[in-house]
């Protein structure tokens, strides 16, 4: 993995970072690169309440805020920013507001790499709106001053239309940290954590791949 000067991660939901990119985040931090994680919402409209329920619609935001902080802690992220949007509403906000906030963070932090979602291939409307704003903010910068964009794509049509990811990070050295980040979001991941730990023990190929590789598409402007 290339050594970066500063990495900016922008996602809309607590736990978006855990599955796809937490190994990459941990690897950068372990190399001494500062990572800023801007998380737009608290996942207020999440549906996992448990059976019997451990949360209500009204207690979930605070639970997820604590989980987000815990995930940041296990990954070593010291600059966690919660932007105060509401789950499922990002696409209805004035796009210039979010683009402006991302532009301000780029000016302040001067990241050499930004990690976010790939517009058109990230399934959830909040993911799409976030990825679009990140791309728009970077596109506004003069060509020589743009940070690299490594974007996560997982829509069913991704491979057909974008081909295989051009960036593949081997994160096996920090697999434990990745598992801990996933565990930190326990309200959302409880149901899969046991299965994942079991898969890791039995060297289940699907689980091993998940805890060994993280993939990104370089977005070309």
């Amino acid at each position, binding site marked *: 993995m290339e050594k970066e000067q500063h990495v900016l991660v922008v996602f809309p939901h607590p736990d978006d970072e855990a599955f796809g990119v937490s190994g990459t985040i941990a690897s950068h931090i372990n190399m001494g690169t500062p990572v800023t994680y801007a998380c737009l919402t608290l996942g207020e*409209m999440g*549906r*996992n*309440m*448990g*059976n*019997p*329920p451990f949360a*209500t*619609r*009204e207690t979930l*935001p605070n639970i997820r805020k604590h989980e987000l902080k815990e995930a940041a802690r296990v990954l070593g992220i010291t600059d966690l920013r919660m932007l105060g949007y509401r789950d*499922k509403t990002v696409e209805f906000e004035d796009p210039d507001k979010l683009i402006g906030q991302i532009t301000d963070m780029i000016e302040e932090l001067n990241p050499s790499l930004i990690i976010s979602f790939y517009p058109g291939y990230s*399934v*959830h*409307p909040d993911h799409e709106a976030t990825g679009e704003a990140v791309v728009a903010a970077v596109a506004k910068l003069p060509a020589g001053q743009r940070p690299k964009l490594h974007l996560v794509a997982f*829509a*069913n049509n991704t491979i057909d239309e974008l081909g295989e990811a051009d960036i593949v990070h081997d994160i096996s050295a920090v697999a434990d940290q990745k598992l801990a980040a996933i565990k930190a979001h326990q309200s959302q991941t409880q*149901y899969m954590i046991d299965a994942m730990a079991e898969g890791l023990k039995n060297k289940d190929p699907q689980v091993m791949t998940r805890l060994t590789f993280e993939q990104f598409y370089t977005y070309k402007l």
Partner: protein
Amino acid sequence: MDPVNMKEVQEALDSFKDKEVYLHMETTNGAYASHFNDKFFSAGAYIRNAKLSYERAKITGPGPYRVGLKIPFGWVYAEGITHYEIDSKSRLLLAGHDYDGKLAVALQLSETAFE
């Protein structure tokens, strides 16, 4: 939250009668439903902090339960309610959870706006 106790829920519903209350209501099958199954038609709706008052309210059914509120020019209706809670702010939270513990429907009433 606890499994619905019809008597307690009915009492709570009655306690908000003829008052100005804030309503949170939602139904959803999740933003990923169509991603995991392309034959699945994903739909959902929510309204947060609609201000209204009602003259009549009832919870009924064998469980999961149905709830109807009669408002001046129409109705508020939810079905699939399985759990309830009267929280520390005296708000009535009603929710329906599916077999995996995922929220499928919610109907909540409060005398002050939800955050």
